[in-house]
């Protein structure tokens, strides 16, 4: 076996092959798996550290303050200080807690969050497990996190943690439906559940522009709905009621301290990266470049660039929007998100069966198809928004306790 010469695009694949090539033959499958797992854990854990710093700095700027600026130059060593602090803190377990479940909950949560990366194509030929049912695997593994949240909330024997867990589960179950339905539109058009095949489908170019699904009307609407549902699914602001610190202190992980608390924190961000990565894979063309003349930039740089851009959007949204109320949250999921995702699926179906070009009319066919599909999404959006708005009266609220 000889190794092909490394290129910038395939450098990581080449390094992995080189490492596996130099291990004894019986251990080669094991070495291959270990390489991939270690790479995923190291890369995304350091991305976690980077994001925490970015978030604290960015939020600080948005709120007219400095953010962390004491550890290292401009505070860039803050994540290390945080890690040392959480590792050396005392691990407190409530006396009446259910010790086994209390111990297992963060482990299950972190393991399930990391497992989701198995099917994400983070570069050309860089999918850890190329499953035939990749998208289904992602959602199946994601559903295990709900149970971990329940385990954490129930085992702590604290009313706040139980309330937080119930809120979190109700929210995650409700928003999982729009999340899955909006990805069904992509699965329908791509005709496959495999994540790498979906990216391959989008990495084609006509007139130098990629076939990303976000460039179609249903894809754009689906992407927006997907990202809203993803925000709710990962309990990010403005959907962070499960851990609303002004009402139920910290939600389901209130009774966790030290390293276990850090694990919850880590899992939350890891989930956010994973679901953003799925959004990139489904709608933003995965590792492909948007225009063909930029295709020389290595595929993994494109993926992580898109991921960072989405993370910045998450931070921006967190710094901008106030937290929702529970009834607003549920109404939004069931009365707005669910019907809209159904219309997105309808629009994608129409897109599939309308001809892309009408003979002899140039670009007219494509424009007509674009307009028809955009209309199918826009009309219910306007109608739904009007209908939901009509029954609502905006009046001065009276506060009984706080003036």
């Amino acid at each position, binding site marked *: 076996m000889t190794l092909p010469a490394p290129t910038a695009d395939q450098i990581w694949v080449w390094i992995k092959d080189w490492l596996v090539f130099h291990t004894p033959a019986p251990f080669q499958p094991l070495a291959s798996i270990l390489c991939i797992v270690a790479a995923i854990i190291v890369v995304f854990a350091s991305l976690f550290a980077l994001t925490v710093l970015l978030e604290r700095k960015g939020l600080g700027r948005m709120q007219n303050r400095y953010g962390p600026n004491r550890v290292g130059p401009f505070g860039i060593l803050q994540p290390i200080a945080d890690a040392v602090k959480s590792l050396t803190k005392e691990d407190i377990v409530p006396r009446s807690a259910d010790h086994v*479940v209390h111990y297992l909950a963060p482990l299950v949560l972190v393991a399930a969050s990391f497992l989701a990366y198995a099917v994400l194509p983070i570069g050309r030929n860089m999918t850890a497990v190329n*499953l*035939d*049912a990749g998208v*289904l*695997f992602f*959602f*199946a*593994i*994601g*559903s*295990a996190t*709900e*149970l971990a949240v*329940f*385990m954490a909330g*129930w085992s702590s024997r604290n009313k706040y943690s*139980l309330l937080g867990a*119930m809120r979190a*589960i109700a929210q995650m*179950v409700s928003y*999982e439906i729009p999340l899955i339905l909006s990805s069904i539109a992509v699965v329908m058009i791509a005709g*496959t*559940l*495999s994540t790498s095949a979906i990216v391959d489908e989008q990495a084609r170019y006509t007139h130098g522009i990629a076939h990303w699904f976000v460039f179609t009307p249903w894809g754009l609407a689906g992407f927006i709905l997907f990202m809203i549902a993803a925000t709710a699914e990962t309990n990010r602001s403005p959907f962070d009621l499960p851990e609303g610190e002004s009402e139920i202190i910290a939600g389901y992980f209130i009774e966790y301290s030290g390293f276990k608390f850090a694990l919850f924190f880590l899992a939350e961000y890891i989930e956010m990266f994973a679901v953003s990565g799925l959004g990139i894979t489904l709608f933003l063309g995965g590792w492909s470049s948007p225009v063909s003349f930029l295709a020389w930039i290595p595929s993994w740089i494109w993926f992580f660039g898109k991921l960072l851009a989405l993370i910045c959007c998450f931070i921006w949204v967190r710094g901008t929007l106030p937290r929702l109320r529970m009834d607003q949250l549920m109404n939004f999921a069931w009365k707005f998100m669910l019907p809209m995702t159904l219309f997105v699926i309808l629009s994608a179906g129409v897109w599939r069966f309308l001809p892309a070009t009408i003979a002899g009319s140039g670009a007219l066919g494509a424009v007509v198809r674009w307009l028809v599909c955009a209309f199918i999404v826009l009309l219910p959006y306007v109608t739904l928004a009007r209908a939901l708005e009509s029954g609502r009266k905006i009046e001065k609220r009276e506060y009984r306790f706080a003036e």
Partner: protein
Amino acid sequence: MRTTLPFLILAVLTLAGGVAAMTLRRLVHCALCLTVAFAGLAALYLNLGAEFAGLAQLLVYVGAIAILIVFAILLTRGGDDKAEPSFSPAGAAGVVLAAAVFAVLGWAIVTSGILHQAANPAAPPAPMRSIGLALMQRYVLPLEVIALMLTAAMIGAVILALREKRPQPEQDQRSAQ
């Protein structure tokens, strides 16, 4: 082809989860162990090459049914400790009956002679595309019926779980206190 070690490990895990789910005292523990059994079964399906069925099992059972059961336990105050009598004549009869059922099934399997028969060559894992085509062509009518049934079940569950209009006397007493 013989029974493989992963299959045995997963089978033991599934059965242990099932036994724990049916014997533990606390209802929430039972529900969590039941989830282990469901997840073990999903892994067994994956081990047998049924990728789609395994992932669907994980999505539906761990993601939905386990959550439903846990919610039902908390809503019926089953999370509190309640001492259940450890032995009762009816319970013993149930165990004996179940053992008898297992004995009959096991006897049927052993006497059928497949224990030492060479297995058919393992099937190639089913590609997702062929499952989709089968669902959309040959089994499209059952699929539609299932869709209708799920809708009916959803409406039925919502109506059943709706709070009754008439306030119950017990609740009145509680609110008066």
